[in-house]
């Protein structure tokens, strides 16, 4: 069966695809990602009127 894609066009496609993937991966998707609270810890605030023990 004749191969419709010859060697040069194959590598051409592969190369273009790789370039596209690399560029996409460098885009700041995190800015648009959902806020996964599992990965964030509750912010703790020290009570400013507490008197600490001097050891």
């Amino acid at each position, binding site marked *: 069966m004749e191969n419709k894609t010859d060697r040069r066009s194959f590598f*051409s496609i592969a*190369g273009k695809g790789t370039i596209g993937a690399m560029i996409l991966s460098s885009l700041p998707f995190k800015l648009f990602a959902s806020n996964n609270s*599992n990965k964030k810890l*509750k912010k703790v605030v*020290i009570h400013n009127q507490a*008197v600490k023990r001097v050891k």
Partner: protein
Amino acid sequence: MSEENKKYWKSLDGLNNSTDLPGKNHKEFPDSVTDGFNVESINGLSRRKFLGLLSVSTAIAATACSDYHDQKEIIPYTNRPEGVLPGKPNFYASTCNGCQEACGILIKTREGRPIKVDGNDEHPINKGKICATGQSSIYNLYDPSRLQNPLKGTSKTNWATADSEIIAKLDSVSKSGKKIVVLTNSINSPTERKMLDEFKQRFATAEVHAFDLFNNCNKKFGWFKSYGNAEIPSIKWDKANVILSLEGDFLGKEGNFIENTRLFSSKRDFSNVKNFNRLYVVEAGLSLTGSNSDYRMRLKPEAQYDFVMALLNEVIKKGASNIVVDSSVKNKLSKFSLDKIAKSNDLDSIKVNYLVEDLIKNKGKSIVYAGDSLSGDVQIAVNLLNEVLGNTDLYNYESAYVNTGKQLHFPQIEELIKSYNNGEVGAVIHYDVNPSFHLPKSLKYNEALKKVGFVISLVDSPNESTINDNFTLPINHNFESWGDAHSRKNVYSLRQPVIAPLFNTRQKEAILLTWILGSPKVYNESLYHDYLMESCRETIYSKKKLSVDFISFWNSALHDGFVNIESDGNSRKPFNISEIKIADSPKENSGFSILLAKDYFIGDGRFANNGWLQEIPHPISKVAWDNYAAIAPSSASEMNLKNGDIVNVTVGENSVKIPVLLQPGVAQNTLVIELGYGRTVISDVGKEVGKNANNLLNIKNLNSRWICSNASVEPTGENYKLVSTQEHHSLDEEFVKDLHLKRGIIREANLDEYAKNPKFANEEDIELVSITSEHGQVGTKWAMSIDMNKCTSCSVCVASCNVENNIPVVGKDQVAVGREMHWMRIDRYYSGSSEDPIVSNQPMLCQHCDNAPCENVCPVNATNHSPDGLNQMVYNRCVGTRYCGNNCPYKVRRFNFFNFRDHFEDGFYLNEVSPLVHNPEVTVRSRGVMEKCTFCVQKISEEREDAIREGRQIKGDNVVPACQQSCPADAIVFGDANDPESKISQYRKHELGYGVLQTLNVKPNVTYLAKLRNTHSEDI
């Protein structure tokens, strides 16, 4: 034709020398080779260009790609809060509110986050130690199921709306003449009491009632009848040569058992055996105190009254009374014969005689203690017995308990519920209480509550009482709150917040103050703080007449956590013998006796959602994640019951289905059931854990709500799986009776035996010969000793270790298959008969053996020995073969079968607060990794760093592992065995010191000091 002339040809054309052949004209390829090949139509991207683009793209991607591991934000601490040094902990003094004892605590924080709670070492009552509940309270702070916002019904609302509606409603209820009922626990805070009084003034129809599921109301009643006041003194346990405890678990759960344990254990010093105390315990169920007794007798709770009266009679008959006893009283006492009572209750007459002899011989230096569950009549009889024996010098009036006021009893509760039903009550405020759970269903509290127009609950998380709420208001955790406590006469304790509220919660006192002041706008974060300061100024500072200003005094008090108060004179009053009426003996009990007891860890059920507390094995039965009805093996065999069989326990009209546990040491025909279980409105951790037996509370018995008689027990034919850790990690496979004694795991003797043969602890050991030369250890060598004379198996060390070392909670199913992760466990052994056994306890942890069998078998050298004697665990080398755990003779290694912090149990721990509980100084272990006790290597490292910085040698005494720090009996000693002046090096050489399974030649570095029982020479 010759070879030279031979000609080869490929074709006829070649043979004929045709000029059309390729290559004929020195051309490599024929002219047609490029036919159909149009250079112009080829893609403009050449190979060179493609490779060039590829390399540029790779470079861009490498610089732009984000790390998929990155999940956290790194925030530079450039604007560091004052007083916070990253990596260095801060400590804050405060007061525990887990129970009424108000122990002083020291909260350790890292970067503003509380991570560990220990006792306040300067506090005069608990002196640096707290109970397992206090240790684990950090878990409650970071409980994700805490209420995070105010609720109106079931919908979220805001504080302004809630406050304004509530104030308006309370005003209208008050004006209408209907009552406003405030239900609370006993209040030991003078400021809170003052505030509640102001609440009553503000709302004229307001009533404040206190109810605790467990309290000392019987003791207070008895004391009041005996001495005319309710300020019960504490006991100088350290001065008592002989102690008789009647159903009183003073080492496990009654009074300030931390203080009791310290004082009791001080008279169990093996270096001063002549000073040993002798403990007699007479009880129905096997308690922690009973398991530490020298002599123990089983007696049904209803028979305690007769027993005490008979003892009184015996002592007076023998002429040993210290006071003049009226002849009429003597005559009445004469009907109580000790022999008869001993026979009818199957008491060992030898032990009874020993008891009487000892009490008389140690008049003035002994104490008789009645447990809180015993009726007021028994309390009065015991008070009289102490007077007769002259033991009242052991009452510590300076440190007496402050009377926290009246408690509701069941008749009053019934009246209250009636008033709900009659429409006399317009509003009910549940002030951090849960009456719907605590009260028996037969009282129909919830149904009555529906008839009240307005119900508000101030709670930290939803509970059974909040289901009918109009408003449910979330309150701060103890570590987020201001407060004070005055539970003992000589100490006024202060509570300060160490972290701002994690959620949209408020301090419960501040909520009430806002309503008192009548406007939502008055609330601010300092509202209760200012009120507390003012109250402290009036009640404490003004009376002390100090030269410093109030602010300096206040800051100093917060720094210390408490203020010493001089006692206002000796409140000791003479015993009112004329008031004593000899009560009738309780009627014959034909059925079972039921004793309802407090749980050792979860209290009245308020801590049921604390996974650490649920998972710590019961000190006696070693059952985790459940309660049960403890029954004597003989009573069980009469009914053909085995462990886990569900029985229907009926008292009057109330019944409960509960599994039984065959518990050696329980009195015949008695069930002992711990309450606080079976919660239904709670988060997943505590939901439906155990069975709710509150229905069995004895409403009719005015003497004691916790004792029921004539109960029927019917097997249902069902079985329930109770999970006990006792058979896990057994040190041997086959069951052999008294194996722990035969193998030398437990070594004990009585004092006489020890006097005759001081080397009994090691005399049966064989001489060990090593085929290799001894490894000398130069420099620091860490070692530990555990004094079995002092250890009471209270399990505080287990709780402390869990908190310090980030031990995960694994749940009941995993505990059932032996996967609990506790680095420290307390093994409990019985010896003697199954009905009346002798109990021996032994804390077991990694022994950090010099010849560790686990180190040799690790294929990747993940476990090895440090130069200072520690058996180390390198988590990131471990590949999880578990060969080390297989080889460990002590079975102290724990394997992480799951990543308990990740998707275990539907990701229960994946939320924004649970990870805050972790101690940042200790690695959080992942799946597939073995772990075990490290001798708190993080504390050793801290000392090493301090020593390097200060240019000195490491001092062994400066390293205090979590277990040693928390042990209320000071049974654990840790330090440098190579330091000849250290305590540990002396204990290692002591004649009582031995290593468990030391004949295996593993050379354990944990030395156990053999237990000495203070029994008579003919007993063991």
